[in-house]
């Protein structure tokens, strides 16, 4: 490279294929260049950590104490139960919605489109409040034969306890989002794969189980992980109706001791840990369904 820079005219005179090229930096030069970036980033991080750690308002002792306080753990359990139940119901409901949305029957398809439109349009917070307050609008709930009054009915406020109301709101909302994620996955399976299964003598149901579902799973899992993390965090919205989840508990404590930030950090730490669990599970599932991907 030295000879190239020493004589510009010679460089220009060389045929294009013989001209020297600039190579990526190597050895010490590279260590210095990349090392300086790491050093700068490390300094900034250390400064931020130092600032937070030495802030007297942080009350690290409070964070440590409340992190495993029974009342916080109770809230954590409620959060996990709500998120898990909404995830399971939402996944099953989403599969139904996806299949309805892809049905050849226009009535069924329209129902699914209507469901998706409604539940994706209304903010989740509003949905939670609607289910929570349903008793003021429909005092009685139940199933029976229309126009006859025959059937099983109950008091809405008894059936839809705050906990159940939140569960219903999250699950129905989740089903709408899962429905589109699952539909995307199903659409990603090539038509030829389904036809090959049918040509082999599989029924449609068996082709779905053996070929479509496992192949769709591969493309469903990353957005599914996203969605479950969103769901987990969305459970914090149920604190508006005081169901006793992690967020409700944290709010309850700082309302009396005014240690707002420390308790929000306690909640954040738990949400972070749960998110890590979901992320790890997503990684495991991705590897499980990665078979046959071109490497």
């Amino acid at each position: 490279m030295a000879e190239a820079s020493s004589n510009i005219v010679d460089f220009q005179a060389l045929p294009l294929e013989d001209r020297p090229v600039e190579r990526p930096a190597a050895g010490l030069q590279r260590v210095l260049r990349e090392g300086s970036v790491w050093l700068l980033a490390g300094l900034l991080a250390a400064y931020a950590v130092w600032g937070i750690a030495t802030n007297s308002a942080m009350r690290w002792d409070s964070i440590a104490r409340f992190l495993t306080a029974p009342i916080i753990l109770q809230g954590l359990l409620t959060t996990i139960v709500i998120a898990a139940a909404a995830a399971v119901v939402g996944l099953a409901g989403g599969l139904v919605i996806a299949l309805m949305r892809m049905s050849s029957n226009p009535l069924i398809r329209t129902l699914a489109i209507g469901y998706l439109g409604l539940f994706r349009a209304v903010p989740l917070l509003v949905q939670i409040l609607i289910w929570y307050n349903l008793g003021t609008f429909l005092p009685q709930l139940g199933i029976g034969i229309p126009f006859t009054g025959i059937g099983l009915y109950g008091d809405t406020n008894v059936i839809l306890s705050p906990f159940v109301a939140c569960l219903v709101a999250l699950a129905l909302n989740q089903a709408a989002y899962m429905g589109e994620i699952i539909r995307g996955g199903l659409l990603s399976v090539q038509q030829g794969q389904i036809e090959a299964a049918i040509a082999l003598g599989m029924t449609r149901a068996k082709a779905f189980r053996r070929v479509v579902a496992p192949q769709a799973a591969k493309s469903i899992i990353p957005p599914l992980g996203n969605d479950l993390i969103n769901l987990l965090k969305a459970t914090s919205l149920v604190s508006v109706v005081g169901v006793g989840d992690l967020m409700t508990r944290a709010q309850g404590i700082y309302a009396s001791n005014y240690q707002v930030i420390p308790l929000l950090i306690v909640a954040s730490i738990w949400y972070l840990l749960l998110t890590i669990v979901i992320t790890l599970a997503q990684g495991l599932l991705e590897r499980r369904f990665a078979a046959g991907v071109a490497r």
Partner: protein
Amino acid sequence: MNFATPEFRNASAVPALIRVRNVSKSFGTNRVLDDVSLDIRKGEVRCIIGPSGSGKSTLLRCLNALTDFDSGAIVLDDTRIGYTERGSVLKPWTGREAANFRRRVGLVSQHVNLFSHRTVLENVIEGPVQVLGTSRAVAVRAASDLLARVGLADKHDSYPSQLSGGQQQRAAIARALAMDPKVMLFDEATSALDPELVAEVLGVMQALASDGMTMVVVTHEMRFAEEVGDTVAVMEAGRIIEDGTASDVFSRPRHQRTVDFLKDHSGFRTA
């Protein structure tokens, strides 16, 4: 070389395994099959040639009940495709009845559709284990034999994405054969392959023909049709315009359109 057995030179002597009678089918105003009648005898290699869009593939898919047709009838053995006899009426098939029928017909299509999430071996045992209820051990043994037959003995654990197009197509043939079908349908099985991979697939098909498999082969490989085919039907615009022994159709075509078609395709692989 010629693998045709002599009795097919006198085709009418052997009763038909498949009878196609006056089959018509339209997509909207486009008549893709127009009063098609055809016999396919046991052990015969029945080639169907003709220009693109002439209805060859649609006809083949009718034989596997993958596509339904508007009028006419197709009978395989004693099965009327699409219907089951109940009492004295023919009732349309349920989904399961259609699936049961397809076990008896193997299909290898242009676009290789090996199950991408399963290894070669898993692809081949999928049908026997999941559809026929064969035990896994028995299915694996049979699959090993079939994979050796198509020259893929060392590829059991490869995924389709790790195989060449020709290897994939040979695995697809093994997968179809694993169902022990009465007849094998080939829908332009080499059309999507790189030219240098065509021969290995045609070689497997040729070996299959010489083993006595009944085959219906939609193809653009004129040499294959001429040398391996026993009888050749020429389709154009949804009709069969010429049908006879391979040597008759290729050396003494009666129809001017056949002459034109063969002339257009004579440039291909005249080795």
